[in-house]
């Protein structure tokens, strides 16, 4: 349902080179790679915030770049990395913003908007703080509200940039579990950027490994999260075996040698 072909992008230096991959219906693609690999840039290009120098992004066979902005906004739900908001909008107001692309220029929310926002908040378990300002919510609660806003328009594709970055392990798991449920029930797919390799291994249907703007591997997690590939890309020693619970790849860090201790200091 999503087909990315030949994406090139640079600022003063090349950031992304010749990226091509596909995602099918109901898939959860996790994009992993070192800092500066271009993961966020890739997401912004898919969403339509940035324009690639060459290449195309097709959603359900339609080119994102040639769609009207509102149309693309309706079809793609985006949660940016590390948002900070200084105005005390209530969670309800925040989620209702996700209906913008569906609304007329001036006016107030329709019943349909309210119903859809309610549904989004129920699915993300955020209905409990509908009347609280988002500035007062905890990190995890705010992430879920942002997710609710992203799904309020019933998009075809969810694009999440580091959605678990500041969450504790329990919330990390709950968040990705939520995303997985949303896409399985909602005729959606998702692209998620994260640094949590084990989380990625557990929840992804497909993994894409990015280094310096180039795609190093794309496929099932156990094909991509291999010791060789990961050690090459992250330039550090890692041990990869299978999780005793699920069989998914399990990445264990190998502590660097400690010369000070050996010298008895």
């Amino acid at each position, binding site marked *: 349902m999503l087909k990315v072909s030949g994406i090139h992008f640079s600022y003063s230096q090349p950031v992304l080179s010749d990226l091509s991959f596909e995602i099918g219906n109901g898939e959860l693609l996790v994009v992993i790679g070192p800092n500066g690999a271009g993961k966020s840039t890739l997401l912004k290009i898919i969403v339509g915030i940035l324009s690639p120098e060459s290449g195309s992004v097709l959603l359900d066979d339609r080119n994102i770049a040639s769609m009207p902005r509102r149309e693309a*906004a309706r079809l793609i739900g985006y949660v940016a990395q590390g948002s900070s908001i200084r105005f005390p*909008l209530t969670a309800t*107001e925040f989620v209702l913003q996700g209906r913008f692309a569906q609304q007329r220029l*001036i006016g107030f929310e329709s019943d349909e908007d309210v*119903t859809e926002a309610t549904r989004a908040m*129920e699915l993300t378990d955020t209905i409990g703080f*509908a*009347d609280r300002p988002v500035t007062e919510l905890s990190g995890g609660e705010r992430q879920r509200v942002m997710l609710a806003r992203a799904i309020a328009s019933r998009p075809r594709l969810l694009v999440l940039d580091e959605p678990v970055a500041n969450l504790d392990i329990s919330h990390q798991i709950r968040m990705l579990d939520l995303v997985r449920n949303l896409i399985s029930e909602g005729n959606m797919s998702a692209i998620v950027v994260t640094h949590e390799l084990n989380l990625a291994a557990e929840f992804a249907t497909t993994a894409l490994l990015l280094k310096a703007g180039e795609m190093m591997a794309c496929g099932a997690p156990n094909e991509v999260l291999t010791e060789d590939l990961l050690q090459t890309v992250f330039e550090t020693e890692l041990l990869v075996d299978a999780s005793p619970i699920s069989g998914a790849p399990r990445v264990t860090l190998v502590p660097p040698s400690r010369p000070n201790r050996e010298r008895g200091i």
Partner: protein
Amino acid sequence: MNVTDTPNAVRHIASANRVTLAQLVVALTLLALLVIVLAVIATAVGSEHVSLASISKIIIAGITGRSADVTPEQQIIIAEIRLPRVLMAVVVGGALSVAGAAYQALLRNPLADPYILGVSTGAAVGAIVSTVFAESIPVGRPLAAFIGAVLTITAVYALGQGRRGEASERLILAGVITNTFLSSIVIFMLTAASGSRLRSIFSWLIGDLSGEPRLLGLVTVFVMAGIVVIYMNARALNLLMTGEEEAVALGVEVRRVKITVYLAASLITGAAVAVSGVIGFVGLVIPHAIRLVGGSDNRLVIPASALAGGALLLAADTVARTIIAPRELHIGVISALIGGPVFIYLLRRTS
């Protein structure tokens, strides 16, 4: 996880968590009533006593086009001094408050005021230049002030262009730099000005609603148009407040909205400052106060700020011209003295 359209949930959302049309109408009606009451009081009181009967005659005569049965002095005082001043207070208060609200949303900073990008300082340069060099030109000062404002708006916008369009931080930086530079020009010109000119320009710099009403009609139409343009972008501004990239992803044409709102807000600020000088406090505090009471939805904040700003300046101006009559106090001081405690009260109530 199943979707359940429970009536409770829908009611939960549809309640007072967001701005509805009904709420907006109620809020604006109350504020409009406040403005009307204050306008009536402002017309009825002044340094010279004019009876309510005479005032009514003058107003009715003005509407019907006939002449009123009053002395020429009363006619001039009400029709040419007081009523224009009432209108100016409402228009200037409204313009500055809406511009403040717009800037706060645009720059994602609840503490922005309409002067933050240097518009008022540019206007001041124009006003001082015309006061010192071209005093004999009719409506010279407001015209020069407006030109100064427009030039500043253009310069700041051009300076604020980054590699990929204008980022808010870059715009703020451009505005602050321009403001500082222009301020030093203003101060230099002030040191060079002689006694009486100095007094005149000093009063303008603090804000003054007693000016010539010749341009008032034009300014009113201009400001109203600007407020309408900003209001049409109110919903987009709501999204912009949460982040520019997020707004793009949600379907906002961010670049167009930013340019439009920036221009409209800056131009109505320039127009207000051109006729009334640099009245501080209103543009920062009114939108802030509205947000404390009514939430951050710009569909409410913008029109409510317009009315509340008008009300504040009406009250302040009435006090400024009656409390030590026939002398007049400076309106900027009065608006801060009235608005300050109100704002502090609101702040404490909500925290």
